[in-house]
């Protein structure tokens, strides 16, 4: 990892850099990385840029293989990668373009509380949430489902949880795809995937997944804040989780079977983790149907997590969640492939947009947005690390034109987990965070050091790039007060 990537990168402007098609014979389009000079230096430290070039080999890819400023080395695709393929033109779908944690994503809730009103309760809340929300590796939830119900989750998504009483219809209104993408095919999901997903609904998972109590400490767009009902000093809560074991198994099943498709469909890619199949092929349709099941499972999971979180607040404050104003601002996926229409060379095309560690960022007026957000654009939720900030942005028209309606998804890792574990002391880190008014509760000390702020790029730098490049617009910034890590 110490070697620096030496490939060619041409400056387009202060926030856009091109890997030319001529870099590797076989690249169908150039690579474009959104970054400033400082972030570009970090990006060159691993082979993520090589992966951007590799993605450009995918059949049917249009415009460019894109990378967001939080890009880092991933499985096949870089994390922070966006690629759209033209379905009509043999465009492919690749499990590596979505990743193992299908529909890993974030949701942001607001509350009626101001920081001063609850600052003495943060510790109680963190401990309560830690005991009430199942977290950690392979954690099992209290929300148990039968096999029949698990199949229902795969098609109904967050709607299943709302039917069960774990939330309201309004929650669905403010969830991407209303919490259930159509076309999910439970028959395309293996028995093993069902088995892995069983008992994990309503569980946070581990690693970088978290629940976070935050306070808004900076407003950038007061008009958008008014429209979202957000103000300085207001308490918000962020949930980051995905499809757990079920999603990993779907990815593994199809990443395996699609290796055969490379020969079958005469596809030339430089990395077998870019295994893919035409979207219109049997294999492509099966993966899409199974991936949608895992995506719906993840939306149900985050809905269940939000329900458990609201219950914990109700117990601490002896008040209903509605009275506390704990409504959902938005829920977005950041590991997913979606069929979306874009204008390419003046023609409307149906594309398969892979967002792997990238957030959908639809601009104002998009028909997929709820009425309330049609004017301001889609809320784009960007979690940072546990010691710095997180952001709320909105999607822009420019994102629709340049990035297939996509923006970054987080800070992006800078240091490996082992390097972080070697150089960071958990006790000192916890003390340092406490001195900043941040309380952490995690399943293991290992998670604390692996997820330390120093292991991540500075989210402020990453968000500056997407804002200045115009692909998402800053609305407000939050700082963490209490963090529950899996």
């Amino acid at each position: 990892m110490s070697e620096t990537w030496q490939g060619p990168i041409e400056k387009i402007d202060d926030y856009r850099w091109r890997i030319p098609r001529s870099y590797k014979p076989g690249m169908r389009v150039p690579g474009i990385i959104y970054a400033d000079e400082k972030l570009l230096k970090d990006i060159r430290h691993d082979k993520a840029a090589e992966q951007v070039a590799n993605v450009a080999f995918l059949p049917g890819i249009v415009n460019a293989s894109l990378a967001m400023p939080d890009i880092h080395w991933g499985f096949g695709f870089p994390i922070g990668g966006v690629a759209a393929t033209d379905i009509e033109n043999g465009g492919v779908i690749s499990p590596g373009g979505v990743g193992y944690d299908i529909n890993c994503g974030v949701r942001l809730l607001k509350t009626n509380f101001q920081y001063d009103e609850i600052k003495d309760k943060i510790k109680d809340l963190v401990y309560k949430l830690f005991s009430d929300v199942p977290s950690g590796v392979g954690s099992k939830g209290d929300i148990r489902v039968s096999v029949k119900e698990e199949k229902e989750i795969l098609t109904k998504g967050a709607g299943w949880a709302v039917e069960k009483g774990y939330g309201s219809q309004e929650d669905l209104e403010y969830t991407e795809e209303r919490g259930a993408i159509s076309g999910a095919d439970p028959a395309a999901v293996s028995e093993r995937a069902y088995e892995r997903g069983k008992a994990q609904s309503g569980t946070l998972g581990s690693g970088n997944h978290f629940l976070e109590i935050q306070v808004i400490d900076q407003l950038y767009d007061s008009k958008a804040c008014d429209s979202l009902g957000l103000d300085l000093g207001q308490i918000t809560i962020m949930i980051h989780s995905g499809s757990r074991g079920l999603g990993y198994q779907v990815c593994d099943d199809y990443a395996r079977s699609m290796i055969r498709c490379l020969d079958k469909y005469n596809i030339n890619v430089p990395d077998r983790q870019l295994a893919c199949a035409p979207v219109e092929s049997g294999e492509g349709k099966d993966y899409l149907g199974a991936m949608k099941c895992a995506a719906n499972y993840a939306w149900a999971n985050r809905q269940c997590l939000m329900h458990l979180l609201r219950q914990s607040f109700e117990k601490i404050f002896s008040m209903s969640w509605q009275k506390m104003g704990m409504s959902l601002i938005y829920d977005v996926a950041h590991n997913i492939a979606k069929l979306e229409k874009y204008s390419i060379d003046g023609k409307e095309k149906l594309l398969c947009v892979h967002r792997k560690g990238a957030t959908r960022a639809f601009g104002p007026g998009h028909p997929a947005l709820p009425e309330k957000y049609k004017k301001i654009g889609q809320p784009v939720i960007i979690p940072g690390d546990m010691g710095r900030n997180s952001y709320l942005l909105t999607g822009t028209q420019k994102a629709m034109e340049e990035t297939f309606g996509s923006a970054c998804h987080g800070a992006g890792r800078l240091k490996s987990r082992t390097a972080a574990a070697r150089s960071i002391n958990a006790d000192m880190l916890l003390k340092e965070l406490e001195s900043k008014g941040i309380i952490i509760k995690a399943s293991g000390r290992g998670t604390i050091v692996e997820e330390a702020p120093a292991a991540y790029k500075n989210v402020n730098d990453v968000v500056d790039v997407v804002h200045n490049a115009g692909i998402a617009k800053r609305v407000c910034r939050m700082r963490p007060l209490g963090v529950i890590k899996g």
Partner: protein
Amino acid sequence: MKNYEIIEHTADIGIRVRAKSLNFIFINLARAMFDIIAQKQNRRLIAQKKIKIKVSAETREELLVNWLNDILSLSCAKQLVFHDFKIDQLSDSGITSTALGSSMKNYKVNTEIKAATYHQLKIERVKSGWKAEVIFDV
């Protein structure tokens, strides 16, 4: 002493193992994987479950990745931590093996490994026998 080395990787974890035979390359990798995942809480842990795992593939690399992923997936689905492995038959296109493990409850689970990947995968002959490197998605 650990019979594996950790390889640095930005987002994930990599393992390097060496062994005299290919059988032990497979076994050491699987053992290392579970050494990262969990720690025994009871020193005298006895294997309670034996699970037969049979995998076929077109190449040796594919076989290794598929075998490790089958073990991971079984561990998650059956809530077991495997601590040892026996290989009855190994070729470049197939493996018949047994995983020995016990309930996850007997372990402190530290890390979730989502999958073994092809990323920078290496299986090669060296002077002393064999060497392999695998990057895991965590």
